[in-house]
């Protein structure tokens, strides 16, 4: 396979392939962070996670249209506004959903799975009624498309860099919120002992709502970012759900670090296998390996051994 190529070409390809793996890693991190917060910290299985992402994508689409119509001069910067709006929109929907649905189901985790699946159907149909069955084309500012030639041979896609930067900054933000803010302390306290947390004066109800909202908001930002690399349509959210859950579960629920480590290992495995195998088989093998490891080590990669 490599016989006809010079060393420098091979080096360049491998460098770019490594970079492709990193982009995939960032995509996985973005997908999974919101879910890691919701599932890991609250134990809620949100099957509508993909639909919250797509809401972010649609918000981005609307924002781009508004900018194109009313502020064409500022079009190059609309994406930042769109991400903020996506966070707010998905977050607000998250708060609403928590209030109307999730809070009644905390004691029945498998039922949240069913209810949120119902929610995802409703959201899909709503998107279809509002935006049409067809995918919408989101215009990306020119500066975000195209690639950055590092050497003669190595070219790095700019949107890939953008996704990576975003993944790092959102991870950092979530980390800070989780481990430095009062909210984070409260979330972790509730995760460990809900009754005690309530007893020491933490407003568990509001903290739950906020946690769910923030998780959904992060999903919205991810969806907004994915308009650069993927499609925006009513059913596009479904594509993400299996990968996302596997990343979170594989990392060990409750561990943000685990989620990131798991995103890294799955993305690298998939990206390497994709390079040497056909795409479909690479996907099947990746999923099988992940499921296989989970069978041997059900607690995931990172988890504390605790006294029962």
């Amino acid at each position: 396979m490599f016989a006809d190529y010079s060393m420098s070409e091979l080096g360049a390809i491998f460098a770019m392939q490594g970079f492709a793996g990193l982009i995939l890693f960032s995509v996985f991190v973005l997908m999974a962070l919101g879910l890691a917060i919701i599932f890991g910290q609250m134990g809620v299985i949100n099957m509508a996670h993909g639909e919250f992402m797509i809401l972010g994508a649609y918000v981005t689409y609307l924002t781009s249209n508004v900018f194109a119509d009313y502020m064409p001069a500022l079009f190059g910067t609309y994406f930042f506004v769109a991400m903020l709006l996506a966070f707010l929109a998905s977050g607000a929907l998250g708060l609403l959903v928590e209030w109307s649905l999730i809070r009644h189901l905390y004691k029945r985790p498998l039922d949240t799975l069913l209810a949120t699946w119902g929610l995802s159907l409703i959201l899909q149909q709503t998107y279809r009624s509002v935006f049409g069955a067809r995918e919408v084309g989101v215009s990306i500012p020119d500066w975000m498309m195209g690639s950055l030639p590092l050497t003669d041979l190595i070219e790095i896609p700019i949107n890939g860099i953008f996704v990576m930067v975003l993944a790092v900054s959102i991870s950092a933000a979530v980390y800070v919120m989780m481990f430095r803010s009062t909210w984070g302390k409260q979330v972790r306290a509730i995760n460990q002992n809900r009754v005690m947390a309530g007893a020491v004066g933490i407003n568990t109800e509001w903290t739950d709502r906020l946690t769910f909202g923030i998780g959904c908001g992060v999903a919205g930002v991810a969806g907004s970012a994915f308009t650069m690399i993927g499609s925006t349509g009513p059913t596009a959210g479904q594509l993400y759900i299996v990968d996302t859950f596997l990343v979170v579960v594989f990392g060990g629920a409750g561990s943000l670090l685990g989620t990131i480590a798991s995103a890294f290992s799955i993305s690298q495995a998939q990206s390497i296998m994709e390079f040497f195998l056909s795409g479909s088989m690479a996907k099947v093998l990746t999923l099988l390996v992940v499921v296989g490891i989970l069978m041997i080590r059900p607690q995931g990669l990172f988890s504390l051994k605790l006294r029962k």
Partner: protein
Amino acid sequence: MQSSAFMSRKEIIGFAILAALIFLVLPAVLDNFRLNLFGKYLTYAFVAVGLALCWGAGGILSLGQGVFFGLGGYCMAMFLKLEASTPENTAIQSTPGIPDFMDWNQLTELPWWWEPFYSLPLALLAVVAVPVMFAFVIGVAMFTRRVGGVYFAIITQAFAAIMTILIIGQQGYTGGVNGITDLRTLMGWDIRTDEAKTILYFVNGALLFAVLLIAQYVRKSKLGRLLIAMRDQEDRVRFSGYNVANFKIFIFCLGAAFAGIGGAMFTLQVGFMSPTLVGIVPSIEMVIFCAVGGRLSILGAVYGALLVNWAKTSLSESFPELWLLGLGGLFIAVVMFFPNGLAGVWSEKIEPRLLALFSKKKPDTSAPDGAPAE
């Protein structure tokens, strides 16, 4: 004193009503086309009954039941496809005598693992055995390591995804995204005619009742009570000397066997099998059939499968663009307001009123409302 009878009087009446519905009422009031549709819905009821045992009684939620349904259905379809692919029927192919999709994919001979499916007994055995073997492997791996609850649900869902990609990707062997289509005869008997479809409907109904009776037996056996005990206090069961994993594996395999039979009947009645019945979405829908019927009730599961599918068909006929909203709303409503589904509504709301109506005596509704005092 405790009764351990196979069926209480109430349950006998319940079975009788369902039997009357399936064998008398539906065939009497429905035309051939609608009857065949209900036959299709009833194949999902097999899965739902299995889920009522696994999930309702045992607390094991599988989001991969479509895999077993599909495996059963594919086993049946492979037999029928081989029968339909006689050298005469496939004379225009470059390799006559093999299924058409293999020929399109440049296969020149039948893969070895298709060979057993020339035999009807082996194919029928495979309908049950293949899903069970699959469930056994998954069950042993997961339950002996005490993977349960949400994790089990997500991993089985991943299996549904893997299976779909595999079937679609290996289209030379499986028919790919099209599935295995154009099935015609079963041992020379044309399964596409109206008479055949009617007969298959009754066969399907009879099999469903066989499955229901097995499920009823399991529920009423000590194993049935153990399942409920495991769902509530797994550790206590373990420290009463039971190997909990074995029981979970058994019930998961039983559910898979039911699903496999349902899949085979689906293939026979609909005339093909395709990966769209294996994936994540159908697997979750099957859970919903069970939830709507009442996850604790095996009869409820049948009604759930009938009702949801009937609603889906008629909603999509009258309001094609709105049925997803209806279905989504149904999911949420069941979970939020009727966690015990139709069976719960029946036994909590309707039945007491009926009883009150029929017996002049005031109904005795004073359920014990708390722990008895010291």
